[in-house]
């Protein structure tokens, strides 16, 4: 077993900013575990701008923001390509990586595993199950990490902020979606976004859509739905389900930590502590849905809470 002052699970904006803040406060016996091979979290594959202004004083793309986060920490603390398998009482974390499984022990463990979108299955959407149905996260990884365009004529489902990130991602590879489909009577993001979609992107926005039904055997061919009570069918070769962000909490549901049934993240107190005082949580794992900048800020605050606790326990 390897012992550390702090184990951080998740090398995204929250986890990385916590590590940087812990360093500033003089805590350097820190290990940051991430299952990906590159640190930075979700911004790594948000190739469009909109990051960094409040945190680093300049307009950045997601990957630039991710790189800045990594530049602010001691990279020797990163343990990438390692998957956390189990959280145990009092701060023991089982992980596995290229060298096999082993256990890390942290005086404090900061959970910062982030969030993901709710896929089609958990939304109980009707229809067949062909290839081409995906989430924004998957689309962005295709586009920004692998240089691939998995569809040419997609439909975008949802109109949250992340849905506009989807539009930006598609525009980056020269793709104009067939339409944006929203179940509610108005879009979920702030109102002017609808005009941005319509005028800026030339994408029709259909609100009041219901009874979505996916068609196509091997590859998605169309989406049938009711639009303001009328049956409608739009041909497409991709359907991108956007938003409905939820904590990536699979590790928690199988642990001793208490879960908030509403947020599906861990129950935390005002100082980011979980039901086991060895564990802290921050960022989108704790409560969705925050921007990368907000996660960055919360990571920083959580780091201060951990620092205060470690100092108090030392006395």
């Amino acid at each position: 077993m390897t012992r550390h002052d702090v184990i951080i699970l998740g090398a995204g904006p929250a986890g990385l900013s916590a590590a940087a803040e812990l360093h500033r406060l003089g805590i350097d016996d820190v290990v940051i575990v991430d299952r990906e091979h590159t640190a930075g979290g979700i911004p790594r594959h948000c190739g469009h701008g909109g990051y960094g202004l409040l945190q680093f004083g300049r307009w950045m793309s997601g990957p630039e923001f991710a790189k800045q986060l990594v530049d602010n920490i001691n990279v020797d603390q990163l343990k990438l390509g390692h998957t956390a398998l189990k959280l145990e009482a009092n701060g023991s974390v089982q992980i596995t990586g290229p060298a096999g499984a082993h256990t890390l022990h942290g005086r404090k463990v900061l959970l910062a595993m982030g969030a993901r979108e709710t896929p089609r299955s958990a939304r109980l959407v009707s229809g067949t199950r062909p290839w081409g149905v995906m989430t924004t996260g998957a689309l962005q990884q295709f586009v920004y990490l692998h240089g691939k365009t998995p569809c040419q004529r997609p439909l975008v489902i949802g109109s949250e902020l992340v849905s506009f990130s989807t539009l930006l991602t598609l525009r980056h590879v020269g793709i104009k979606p067939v339409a944006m489909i929203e179940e509610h009577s108005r879009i979920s993001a702030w109102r002017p976004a609808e005009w941005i979609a319509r005028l800026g992107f030339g994408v029709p926005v259909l609100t009041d859509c219901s009874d979505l039904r996916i068609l196509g055997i091997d590859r998605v061919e169309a989406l049938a739905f009711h639009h303001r009570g009328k049956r409608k069918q739009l041909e497409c070769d991709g359907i991108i389900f956007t938003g409905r962000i939820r904590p990536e909490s699979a590790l928690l549901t199988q642990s001793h930590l208490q879960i908030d049934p509403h947020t599906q993240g861990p129950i935390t107190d005002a100082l980011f502590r979980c039901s086991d005082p060895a564990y802290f949580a921050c960022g989108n794992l704790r409560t969705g849905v925050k921007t990368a900048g907000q996660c960055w800020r919360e990571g920083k605050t959580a780091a201060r809470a951990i620092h205060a606790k470690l100092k108090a326990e030392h006395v």
Partner: protein
Amino acid sequence: MLLEAGRDILSGASKGNSALLHTGFDAPDGSLELACMQRGYREYLEIHEHLNLPLLKSGAVVVAWNEQELEQLHVIISKAHGNGVTDVRQIDGNALRRNEPGLSTNALAGVCVPGESIIDPWSAPLAYAHQGIAHGGSVVRSCEVLSGNFDGVWHLQTTQGPIGCDRVINAAGNFGDHVEAINRPPPFTVTPRKGQFVVFDKPASRLLNAIILPVPTERTKGIVICRTAFGNVLVGPTAEDQQDRRAAEVDQASLKNLITRGIEILPGLADVDVTALYAGLRPATQFKDYQIEAQAERNWITVAGIRSTGLTSALGIAEHVAGLYAEHFGPLDDAQPIWTPVANLCEQAPRAYQSEKGTEIICHCESVTRGEIEAACEGPLPAVDIGGLKRRTRAMMGRCQGFYCSAQVMALTHGKINP
């Protein structure tokens, strides 16, 4: 030579079932179905270790939820005993709750069927196919049989050109009657019966031990709740007749009904997320029993109408068909079996990520390694499409449904997998 119309094996009726190994306790007595199920069950137990196939001996319990169903329990028991499944017995409500603490307290009593088991629905047929290839057989995929004529031998026209053969075995599942029409006016019509399923995330597997069965009706075995070999929990199937033989759609209303029923039976399911949805098409005909027969003078054997019990009876059907073949066309070589073990995908045995050093997990929800994904694209029957890759590895089948890994999986399999 095995001809498959789909892009891969298991892409039709066999891709969506409840993944159970049945004892035949509730099968119609004297039926061919019962005989094949019980032969298949025995043979699976004999060979599963040689092929590295899982067997989760969970047992099943048929639960009575009302007085009417309670009265049916003794009928189920005497039927089971009549079918030779003699360890089937009734248990009272207290014993039921002791065995299944997660079950709703509305359960009155149950019938224990200790032999019912959980298996992996895809690895088993894949292992059988690998074994067939090792013995000199071949599998041709994307090869739809269009027509044929018989002049002492068969001349089949397929989407991959003409194929000649001495004898034909029609095991075309949901297209069984179409293929049969090449030989004769089909004496049966396939009307696919759709079964929809909801898969719950892995924490749900702590909620139950045995397979929870309802008291069956004339038409269907009803909604089953069970763990899967992959550590999830399954609720389904529905039973809906339809005309379309390819598209197995899920629909939200049915899915919601399944979830509601699931929560009524196992209240703890209310706190668990849905991981996946699927639907399968059972090749039902107007006859209850399997339609298996040989037309010796036509060099043809029909294997049709295999409904929901096909996974269990597959090996028994094979034995029966081999018997028919020997009877009409002469003895088959009694070769020593070559064992072709498949990769383990199940939680009961160590997975690749737990046993391989230096491995890299690509699909984090299902803990699928780079090595497993690469291996699925190699070998005698490699995955050629996404469905086949998913069934061989479970990649992209977990709670995030490819949010994290689909782009990387597609990059890894580029040129081998055709989306």
